[in-house]
């Protein structure tokens, strides 16, 4: 809509008159627009009509709101004219509070505390239980956070809706200096324009070694069947995460396309979860792997490698014998679910300079490794040799990953052999959610 001022060109208005009219227009125009909108059919615009995808590359069809990044089809996201990166060489905001929106227990508060001391700011962490919940709140645009921890399968939504701001890479020299080559130009965000990598992890099976021996689970022809084993009834858990849960049932059937668009396959996966419910009364949780297994609330729980590496913090009594009750299985041939999480800066961040500095801070080798030692999630740092993670002691006084959990170590090659859960087109995503709701309602 044209600016009100333009309509009075050529006509002399004194200042008072102008202000009065501008004020009247300011009141009238929005309500007029609202009425106009009310008269047009509100059902229009519910499918994206843009012929211009929000980025280059990837899978895309007209009508899709964003392109889908795949390993062989990288996406370079657009930098929108109304959503530009901040300028270089700005001073960090004064008296600011760094607002962090994160999963629970997914960053060591001590590291943020050190950052806050260094840059003389406060910090606040808000947690979410799963990405759906986080997106629901992010979408409103009402919450203003400075740092967000997206998974790579929601970037299209966030970027095409201009909820993330493009990064000014000048503030983040640590990424080119320290991080794995894969992440210098990741397929999901070519040229890392919006995100930096945070952690890397595989999704396997966590179990209690005093109930199930390592040999026992490795001898199984299909270890994913263990979730369906009535022997562990009431002691089995999966993540409260529709992608991870459904992907696990797909892998059980040897289906490796964890981004399947086939309704029958998705439906079948949902049915498998319901069978799982009937077989073992499975429960969903988000921290069953790192809290539930060490505490004995679960004997088997779907597990991210990082959760398992950190689970020793939660044993009832801190003894080596108790640490050894925690076990982790991931396919020997490394063909399982693998992924990485990101750090990004929401578009409405109030302290974008601090946020950039924070991203850089988290990619510093020492900070990244200290954070790894606490959250358990490995970081893609060049200097951290995966081979030595089970022997090098961290600041916590124990190895980063205990030797008997060596399957939990992530190698750079895992991203070539493993399968990634990536973004889905909204109508396909709805099918996945539908299958998940069917499971949720028992």
């Amino acid at each position, binding site marked *: 809509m044209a600016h009100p001022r333009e309509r009075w060109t050529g006509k002399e208005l004194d200042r008072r008159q102008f202000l009065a009219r501008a004020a009247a227009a300011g009141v009238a125009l929005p309500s007029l627009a609202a009425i106009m909108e009310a008269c047009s059919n509100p059902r229009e615009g519910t499918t994206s009509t843009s012929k211009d995808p929000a980025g280059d590359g990837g899978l895309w069809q007209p009508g899709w709101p964003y392109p889908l990044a795949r390993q062989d089809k990288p996406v370079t996201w657009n930098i929108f004219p109304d959503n530009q990166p901040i300028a270089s060489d700005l001073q960090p905001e004064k008296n600011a509070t760094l607002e962090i929106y994160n999963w*629970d227990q997914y960053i060591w508060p001590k590291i943020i505390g050190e950052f806050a001391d260094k840059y003389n700011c406060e910090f*606040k962490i808000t947690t979410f239980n799963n990405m759906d919940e986080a997106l629901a709140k992010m979408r409103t645009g009402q919450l203003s956070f400075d740092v967000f921890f997206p998974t790579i399968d929601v970037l299209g939504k966030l970027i095409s809706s201009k909820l993330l701001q493009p990064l000014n890479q000048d503030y983040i020299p640590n990424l080119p200096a320290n991080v794995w080559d894969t992440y210098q130009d990741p397929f999901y965000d070519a040229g890392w324009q919006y995100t930096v990598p945070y952690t890397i992890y595989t999704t396997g099976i966590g179990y209690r070694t005093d109930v199930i021996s390592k040999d026992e689970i490795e001898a199984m022809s299909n270890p994913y069947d263990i979730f369906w084993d009535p022997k562990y009834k009431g002691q089995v858990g999966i993540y409260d995460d529709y992608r991870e849960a459904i992907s696990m049932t797909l892998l059980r059937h040897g289906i490796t396309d964890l981004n399947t668009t086939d309704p029958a396959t998705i439906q079948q996966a949902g049915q498998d979860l319901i069978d799982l419910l009937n077989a073992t009364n499975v429960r969903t949780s988000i921290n069953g792997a790192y809290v539930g297994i060490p505490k004995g609330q679960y004997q088997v729980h779907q597990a991210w490698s990082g959760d398992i590496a950190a689970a020793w913090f939660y044993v009832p009594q801190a003894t080596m014998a108790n640490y050894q009750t925690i076990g982790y299985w991931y396919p020997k041939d490394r063909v399982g679910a693998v992924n990485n999480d990101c750090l990004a800066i929401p578009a409405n961040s109030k302290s974008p300079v601090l946020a950039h500095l924070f991203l850089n801070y988290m990619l510093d080798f020492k900070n990244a490794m200290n954070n790894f030692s606490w959250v358990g999630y490995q970081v893609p740092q060049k200097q951290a040799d995966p081979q030595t993670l089970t022997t090098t002691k961290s600041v916590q006084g124990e190895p980063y990953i205990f030797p008997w959990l060596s399957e939990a170590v992530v190698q750079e090659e895992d991203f070539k052999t493993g399968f990634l859960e990536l973004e889905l087109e909204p109508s396909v995503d709805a099918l996945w959610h539908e299958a998940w709701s069917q499971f949720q309602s028992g």
Partner: protein
Amino acid sequence: MSGPRGWYRNPWRKPRVLQVATWGYLAWSILPVVIAIVISFNSGRSSATFQGFSLQWWNGAPQGDAQGSLFKSPDLHAAIIQTIRLSIIVMLIAVPLGVAFAIGLDRWRGRVAKTANFTMLASFVVPEIIIGVALFYTFTYTLNAAVKLGTTAQIIGLIAFQVSYPVIVVRARLLSIGKEYEEAAMDLGAPPRAAIRRVLLPMLYPAIFASFALVFADVVDDFVTVRYLSGGSSTETLSVKIYGAVRATPIPVYNAAASFMLFTTVVAIAVVYVLYKRFGRGQEGSAADFAAGQL
């Protein structure tokens, strides 16, 4: 008459079974809460067994726990402040609004009054999740530009839910007072507003004080509306923090938090009781007013 049959037929026998059942119920209803309070002073990390007395979960530095103690953790400290802030603001707005509503509804006749009364009762009986979800969508879609999730939204939502409390307590009181007093005052020449303020209002003090305590306590305990309308960790109250964490990591710090909430409620009631003793002298029924709100 003797023997079991006689015992059974004796109309004046002591109801031993009922007695045992009642004491059993009382033990069942109160003991778990007492145990939960005791566990907040646990020296161990377990919230299941008491291992020894310690104040570490209240004001110490519990070992190996990221969350810290109730008063030392910045997170929980912020939650305490948010809890008290919401409770006081909501109480100060909802009670006057509700008292006026009650006085108006009690005397105002007609279709509009009936509709208003019906709406008030409906807001009172619908499950809280319905108001919470409805307001969540209202604030994030319809009024997205005007009201942001966070303290303002929480206050608005809580008032919508709490305003009927004082209405019901005060109306119960109004029913027992009747119109004679302020009518007598007006017969003696007092203008209507003065009659309300100088005659009726003082008689309502017990009910008003009870409403203050009830609304305060209810807001402290709320974790439904407050959770849906919270804008981030800084606007989460103690009860939301407990709800979010206790299921997954039941550590005694949440027992301490819940005990603190209970303590806050008890203090609020004590304050109201003292106020009532000062301003409501000579009037019966503060306890009855409390009961009115809870029945």
